[in-house]
């Protein structure tokens, strides 16, 4: 049973296209995230959602639009893809509580390798 699953694992697309990456967690967590790992393996937070509400948006272009239909899902839609969007995108989840007093570990998905050509 996969705790955090992302689809697809690989995505190759042309510049200008619109694509989505899906993420689902079956851990019952209330917080989900998207991280981006660039070509130098540097990981950086993009978005964080708690109970379907956006709580963190780290200066990500508005071509990126996360959507959380319920607290078990956090999808990432990207419009007008650019070459610089090529990266590995990781979804993660954690149980943080309503006031984030307890910072528990995040569980990560396997990543989606996006290549824009």
């Amino acid at each position, binding site marked *: 049973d996969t705790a*955090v699953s992302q689809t697809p694992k690989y995505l190759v697309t042309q510049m200008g296209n619109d694509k989505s990456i899906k993420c689902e967690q079956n851990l019952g967590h209330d*917080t989900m*995230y998207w991280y981006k790992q660039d070509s*130098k*393996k*540097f*990981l*950086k*937070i993009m978005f*964080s959602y*708690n109970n379907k509400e956006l709580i*963190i948006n780290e200066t990500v272009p508005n071509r990126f639009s996360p959507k959380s239909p319920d607290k078990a899902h956090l999808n990432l839609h990207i419009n007008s893809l650019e070459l610089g969007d090529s990266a590995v995108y*990781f979804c*993660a989840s*954690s149980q*943080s509580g309503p*006031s*984030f*007093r307890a*910072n528990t*570990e*995040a*569980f*990560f*998905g*396997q*990543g989606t390798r996006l290549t824009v050509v």
Partner: protein
Amino acid sequence: AQSVTQPDIHITVSEGASLELRCNYSYGATPYLFWYVQSPGQGLQLLLKYFSGDTLVQGIKGFEAEFKRSQSSFNLRKPSVHWSDAAEYFCAVGARGYSTLTFGKGTMLLVS
């Protein structure tokens, strides 16, 4: 804002030898500290974490880490490295009140 520094980009260790990966953090209060491992083409797996209490924490796969507040460090250690430990290792810090992680740039471990 918090930050994490992993000063070693690559480390090569002989199989059976001991390992220490360095991690320094910058944060104004007591941080929450994590070590994750990423095998090639894989996601991130948590090795261990420090929230409070005993400063020496044990993790999976025989890893341990020690939190040293005076040095702002959280170095990862293993007494005897196996070839299967070859991977990228990330140190991360989380802050009370926030649930996102700030990662270091990673250290690639090569086992010879």
